[in-house]
């Protein structure tokens, strides 16, 4: 999914880095604030980071005959809000750029913007907009959309850099054909995996999720609420 090293013209690479940097700085500060306000949620923060680490390492086959990675950023976006995922996603992308030659340092800004900014915000927006839907539906939609939005953004970034003879729209549909169509079944799988993980977390970490505002009082399972809900 990541744009390979050196595959964005220098001007585009610099522009995406400039766009992504404030999100990463804000996200890093947000992690500090979250840990200070909710020290009991450190384990969940580890779970959100680990989930992204696992999912972005797994290349899955798709119905188009290509393979791609899920992103796993929707989980952290729903639990901790999207800014935190800008920082966690950057760590994952930096690890892959330095040790796996997957993505790259020159394309890190563009990849951060697609996977760690747009994806989490798209997923979180879906989670909030579906406030009246069943909780599992909200999680599924948030996680699948975070995944899919990442790849639509990647296709957009490449089409802007390489419009070719067909222009932006032609290039965009070509890159969407490569990325987004392949990603649809993988996004559905990611949404389903997310439903399972969140089901486990609701059972084992209901007070923490409630304190973070992810679960309302009616959504917990037999655990007493500990703090006021803030963004459920």
């Amino acid at each position: 999914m990541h744009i390979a090293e050196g595959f964005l013209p220098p001007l585009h690479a610099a522009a995406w880095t400039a766009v992504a940097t404030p999100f990463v700085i804000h996200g890093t500060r947000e992690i500090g604030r979250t840990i200070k306000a909710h020290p009991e949620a450190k384990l969940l923060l580890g779970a959100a980071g680990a989930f992204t680490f696992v999912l972005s390492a797994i290349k899955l086959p798709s119905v188009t005959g290509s393979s791609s990675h899920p992103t796993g950023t929707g989980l952290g976006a729903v639990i901790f809000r999207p800014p935190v995922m800008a920082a966690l996603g950057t760590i994952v992308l930096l690890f892959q750029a330095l040790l796996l030659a997957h993505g790259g340092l020159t394309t890190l800004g563009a990849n951060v913007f697609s996977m760690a900014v747009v994806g989490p915000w798209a997923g979180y927006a879906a989670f909030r907009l579906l406030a009246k839907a069943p909780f599992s539906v909200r999680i599924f939609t948030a996680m699948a959309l975070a995944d899919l939005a990442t790849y639509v953004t990647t296709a957009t970034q490449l089409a802007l850099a390489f419009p070719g003879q067909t222009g932006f729209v032609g290039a965009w549909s070509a890159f969407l054909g490569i990325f987004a169509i392949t990603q649809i079944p993988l996004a559905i799988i990611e949404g389903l995996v997310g439903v399972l993980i969140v089901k486990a977390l609701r059972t084992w970490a209901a007070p923490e999720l409630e304190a973070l505002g992810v679960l309302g009082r009616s959504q917990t399972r037999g655990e007493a609420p500990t703090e006021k809900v803030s963004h459920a």
Partner: protein
Amino acid sequence: MRKHLGTLGVVAAIIALFALAMILGTRHAPGEGEAFVGTDSAATTHIEASQPGYSPWFKPLFAPSSGEVESGLFALQAALGGGLLGFVLGTLRERRRHRAAADAAAASDAAAAPPEPRS
């Protein structure tokens, strides 16, 4: 058993989607030996075809020496993440068990305590 039916259904759907991707993906593969090529590789191939003059202006600082080494490193990343995720889920589960035990003990103590004398 009934409360696990939903979970089993989700697991079954994931397996079915995998199977469907494998079957349909093999049919749609562009050519022999090229099944399930990564979308990032497909994108770079498309760029090289549509912009013949373009060549990457920066090389990775480190590149795995072979596909096997690359797969191993990806597996290592997945193992690190999976290990941490398993540790977190296990710890949360134990924490919940201890919480429930402490709550039960407190409730039991409260029930066993003699009633306060009326003044």
